[in-house]
């Protein structure tokens, strides 16, 4: 593990009991994610993509192996310590925007601050407006989720993910519910955020979307079958 490492999977397995015999969602997976990487995790349904993302995000635990976020080993952490990692280092973007319907766009963006146990202040709001501006929705700050299009709602969820200045953003099929044009816009936004140094791990089954990533990891039956770099980008040293 180098100083540049954001996350590390070392022989990570995840098994579920199905009757008598265990079924492996992940099997001895080794992945190192470096700062500033943009990774697409691909694979057919049931290949373990979402399980990998959940373990990386600390919302699921592996059956075996070690998982690190920065210097913190998270596979054996208590719930309380895990939530602090989630608060500070990890942000999620889901297939659906998953905005709280009762909150406006800016309130949804500020939501992570409600759980950071830090008193809110005007600067928080300024920062939230800045994040909304970054995703091109500064003028829709006071709109409720039902007043936003699917693409706009997803942009709000991206702004929300940026609020805690996370070390890594995990996106699970972030364009799965969007039309292709809006999906491309989101991909361009991801590219732009990555070019600013943000580390992104995106689960997708769409090769077109994966082509935006600098690195593609393919899973099959819980195993990494391919880990390649997209040559149209400058290859980083692994």
């Amino acid at each position, binding site marked *: 593990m180098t100083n540049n490492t954001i996350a590390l999977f070392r022989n990570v397995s995840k098994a579920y009991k199905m009757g008598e015999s265990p079924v492996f969602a992940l099997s001895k997976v080794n992945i190192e994610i470096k700062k500033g990487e943009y990774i697409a995790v691909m694979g057919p349904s049931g290949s373990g993509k979402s399980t990998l993302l*959940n373990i990386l*995000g600390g*919302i*699921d635990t592996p059956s075996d192996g070690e998982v690190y976020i920065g210097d913190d080993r998270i596979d054996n952490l208590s*719930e*309380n310590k895990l*939530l*602090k990692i*989630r*608060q*500070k280092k990890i942000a*999620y973007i*889901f297939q659906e925007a*998953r905005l*709280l*319907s*009762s*909150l406006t766009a800016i*309130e949804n963006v*500020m*939501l*992570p*601050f*409600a*759980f*950071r*146990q830090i*008193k*809110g202040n005007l600067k*928080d709001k300024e920062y939230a407006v800045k994040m909304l501006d970054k995703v091109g929705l500064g003028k829709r700050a006071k709109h409720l989720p039902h007043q936003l299009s699917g693409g706009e709602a997803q942009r709000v969820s991206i702004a929300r993910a940026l609020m*805690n200045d996370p070390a890594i953003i995990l996106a699970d099929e972030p364009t799965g519910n969007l039309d292709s044009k809006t999906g491309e816009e989101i991909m361009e936004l991801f590219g732009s955020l990555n070019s600013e140094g943000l580390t992104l791990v995106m689960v997708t089954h769409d090769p077109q979307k994966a082509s935006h990533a600098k690195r593609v990891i393919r899973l099959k039956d819980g195993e990494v079958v391919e880990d390649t770099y997209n040559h149209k980008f400058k290859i980083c040293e692994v």
Partner: protein
Amino acid sequence: MRIYHVALKEVSKRKIRTIYTAIGIAIAVSMLISVIITASSGEVEIFRVIARYGHSLTIMPAETKSQQSLKTFGIGTGSYIPEDAMPNIEKTYQKAIVAGWEKMGQLTFQEGTIGGAAFPPPTFAPRLYEEATVKGSDVIVGGVMLEKELISRFWWEISEGKFMANDDEVILGKLFAVITETKVGDILEIGQSKMKVSGILNETDSPDDYMVFMSLKTCQKIFGKHNKISMINVRAMCPKCPLGDAAIAINKEILGVRATSQSEIATAQSQIFQKTAALLLSFVVASLIISAIGVFNIILGSIHSRLRDIGLLKAMGASRSQLIRLFLYEAALIGITGGIIGFAIGTGLSYVIGPILFKDIVIRVNPLFFLMAIILGTLTTIAASIYPAIYASKIKVAEAFKSL
């Protein structure tokens, strides 16, 4: 952005759920508030009645046992109290009452008030009883001070005619009037005097029904009993006055009289009322528990429908205690809403129920009842939401996402 902002937004956004849940609480709170307001206002009314009717002293001449037996029915002749002893008796009474309050140490006594609440002054109603034969029938003639007698025997009502206004007028007990076939306007010969019947009393189921009443002065004059009275009825006019102390003081300090307290019945009446109110309250508490079960189901159902949000908040780093707080804040807001609605409905109900239960009731709404309604509504919803909130906080993020 704080957790209570999120709770406030959630509660105001989910209006139907909030109102539905709040109404469940409001119904129970309104029942409780209406019972409390009606009971407390009714208690004042009861105390007012007890003050007039229940708490009294009877002061009679001290006499032998054989003479006392005649007084079993509250009437009798032959022994007297000097009328000019009355100021002394009143003074002794007042002094003993003040001392009694001070001894209890919990209420301050000032002129016309007890513990800050206004009460009318006590009434000392003297009577002179004399035996006479009227229209061939033996009868007890009562000399009274009409103004004081009407306070002392507030149930007196005239069925025919009017109360006597002049010294040559009398009123008759109903039975005496019927038996002697006497009518309003008839002239009766009592002693050596001719008296005009000004009115006939309604039946009272007491010895008054077979008596003739005239003014005290006239009675004293006709029967040659100047400055003499047979008894004094003292209406305490306050529900909790230490009448026992007053009776002891009068017996001790005023020679030749015997004062008897008659507050036990009033105390029993008050206790019966309080027990009835307690029984009603227990029914209301039961209804609160039923409401709490309803709230429990609604909140639990709401949590199941919000698994997605719970998963999101946990993924964002919300801790168990923060999630519990979020749900309890929501419950508290619903409880406050229910408490306010319940207070409004309960107050309205007490204005409807109160006059049905207590004649002449004056509904008194204490601001503390408002506070009580809100606290009760809030505590009930919070109590009903504790388990659902803990349940929500235990949901694992991955499970929450899988269930979608």
